[in-house]
């Protein structure tokens, strides 16, 4: 697997979690979600590909969407986390922390071994 493929898989794997975390901060519309993601991460490469993911998360019942008119010159589609979404997010956060901790331990062990061998 090339480095680029690995990076792409890592990015895709974490995008659902990143989107749910963003929406957990409050009711947000598509561009606001993208801007929040762009402010904290470099996960958004093509803005247009975030919308299909938002659609899937909505179909899975993790988000609920609502069109709001009159707030801006054009209608905005707002997303909010559902109860199922909040539960899934809590699970995902726990799994992510446990996973990151394990990889951190591996990194530390590998760096120690590298230092010891020099």
């Amino acid at each position: 697997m090339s480095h680029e493929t690995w990076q792409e898989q890592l990015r895709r794997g974490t995008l659902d979690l990143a989107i749910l975390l963003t929406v957990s901060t409050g009711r947000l519309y598509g561009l606001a979600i993208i801007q929040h993601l762009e402010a904290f991460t470099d996960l958004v490469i093509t803005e247009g590909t975030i919308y299909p993911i938002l659609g899937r998360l909505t179909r899975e019942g993790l988000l609920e969407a609502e069109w709001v008119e009159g707030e801006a010159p054009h209608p905005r589609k707002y997303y909010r986390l559902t109860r199922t979404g909040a539960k899934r997010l809590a699970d995902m956060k726990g799994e992510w922390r446990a996973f990151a901790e394990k990889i951190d331990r591996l990194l530390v062990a590998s760096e120690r071994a590298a230092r010891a061998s020099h």
Partner: protein
Amino acid sequence: MHLTETGESRVNGYLFVLERSLKTFLPPDVVRDAVREIESHVRERVIEADGAPNERDALERILSELGPPLRVAQAYSAERTIDEAVATGRFVSIVRAVSHLAVSTIGGFFAALGLLIGYLTAFCFIALAALKPIFPNNVGIQFAHGVPVGLGAHFPMSPDIDLRGGYWIIPIALFFGLAIFVGTQRGARRYLSWWRGRRLS
């Protein structure tokens, strides 16, 4: 930024291509909603770009960050059709999802080929079972010079072919037809599920 007529046509052109591409795979209400959301995104970005010295450059940057309409449509289709096929296992959803992969990946092309062969084989067996009571003398196991050469229907019967097999062919053909159909369906669903997992992993 207030769009000029040229700017409006550029945005409408982008949305038109997106809509046309989405219509290939998605139901009309989903297409309408998706195009409306992308249009809302573009309009939002256009307002943010207020004060940009050059409308054309600003608009091209906005659309390029959004991604080419075909790519956006492909992302919608992938998310929608494959998820639906894996979740429901419906014949139409599976065919739609595999057709989508067939035009976008090499693996998907071969999966679609396998799926086509599977469905055609199943259809042939079921057709044999349906034709046997109507044309009992034309459907059965074909022998040429005492050697079995095939199973099927012959219209008209060739004098060199000796047709054997009674009505017992019907349940056997039905069994094989349905078994191959179910096997193809399951195989396709498993492939899509694997592809979906790989995409999310």
